[in-house]
């Protein structure tokens, strides 16, 4: 198993970063320079299916979306905790036997208790 990555292993990613940024910037500049420019007051208005636009779009929106984002942060952190365990799972089994499995069962049941709570609270109800 590859234990460690050297800093030099990441240099190709840096090259890819440069290629990607270069491509994006070059294309954005090209399309800005090539395309025609015929601006008009009506053309630059926000699109609202042809009728006169009504106010601004900086509106409050459903708090459900915000709640979903908060729950995502909570659960994603718990998922990240499982990654090191998953990678070392077989080592744990060799070193401490069944404990390597059942400690994660406890963690997962706590995860599911939290999950059950938010489901019962109706945090995931969209109807």
């Amino acid at each position, binding site marked *: *198993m*590859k*234990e*460690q990555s050297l800093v*030099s292993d*990441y*240099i*190709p*990613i840096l*090259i*890819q970063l440069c*290629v*990607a*940024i270069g*491509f*994006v*910037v070059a294309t*954005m500049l*090209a*399309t*800005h320079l*090539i*395309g*025609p*420019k015929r601006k008009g007051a009506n*053309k*630059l*208005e*926000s*699109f*609202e*299916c042809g009728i006169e636009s009504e106010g*601004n*779009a*900086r*509106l409050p*929106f459903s708090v*459900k*979306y915000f709640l*979903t*984002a908060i729950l*995502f942060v909570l659960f*994603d952190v718990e*998922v990240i905790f*499982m*990654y090191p365990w*998953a*990678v070392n*799972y*077989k080592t744990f*089994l060799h070193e401490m036997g*069944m404990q*390597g*499995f059942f400690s994660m*069962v406890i963690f*997962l049941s706590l*995860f599911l208790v939290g999950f059950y709570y938010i489901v019962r609270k109706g945090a*995931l109800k*969209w*109807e």
Partner: protein
Amino acid sequence: MSTIFFLGYKTILVTMVWGISLLIAMYATLMERKLAGFLQDRLGPDRAGPFGIFQPLMDGGKLFFKEEIIPNDSNKFLFILGPSLAMFTACMTSAVIPWGPDLNLFGHTIPLQIADINIGVLFVFGVVSLGVYGVMIGGWASNNKYSLLGAVRASSQMISYELAMGLSLIAVLMMSQSLSVKEIVQQQHGINWNVFYQPLGFLIFIICAFAETNRAPFDLPECEAELVGGYHTEYSSMKLGFYLFAEYINMFVSSAFMAAVFFGGYNFPFMDKIANGNLLAILGVAVFFAKIFFFIFVFMWVRWTLPRFRYDQLMKLGWQILIPLSVINILLTGGAIMLKNL
């Protein structure tokens, strides 16, 4: 190996991977339209060149020559940043995918992978999560109600399915004991593919991949019947092109990732019979691309077969079905590995 040689071939490899992903994304648009035509009993584009093969070039060129409209009410900087970020993240994910077995040229061993890092899987997840910002920033900066609705829908959909996606991969990592994509591929030598051990994990992963790339049946962020164009309603010229194009590149890269992690990557049955290393490498690349094309085909097949989900159904599937299912999958895998090893 000398530093200059290393930098040189890595640069060539990066450019090739970038070029190939752009080319495949371009021709995936044609393939999609041809396939849609076939499934709906019509011809699809056939005017530009024989069988319409110049259609993607024409479409791309047209987008360059279109007027670039930045609405007065929008935040100019963020408006440009949105599509740029979407394209940028789409171009970055391919860095950790091993395209084939090592090649031997001029006495050097050349791995056909841009960067073999020991956190490859996490790199993919990290970059994919950044993709949410492209959609969110673009939709919000447009200052248009349709765009805003599309953007909040898209971002809450993408983060919801990211959870199940991360969980479904944990079971694979428990078997592979490594986060390096190359390591995971090497362990699936021959026909020892992960999908035979993780059918449920694969199913969850492919559903999440559909949702992450905003493809039907999860294309609610841009459902034309309700939201005009969703988060890219206000976009025109190549900025719109970037959003559409990034979707196809993401489709290509997630097909490649699924082929690598679940379907053995460049491994194929009876590969030990081939003694010549370079021949094996070339065949491996061909096999890998065949698998990728198969998955791209599945993406399109699903899009033109299934109707769109309703938003509450989408959230219910993501949170209340896929997440518990992937937890059960982890427990089953853990139990099976424990029984085998103790």
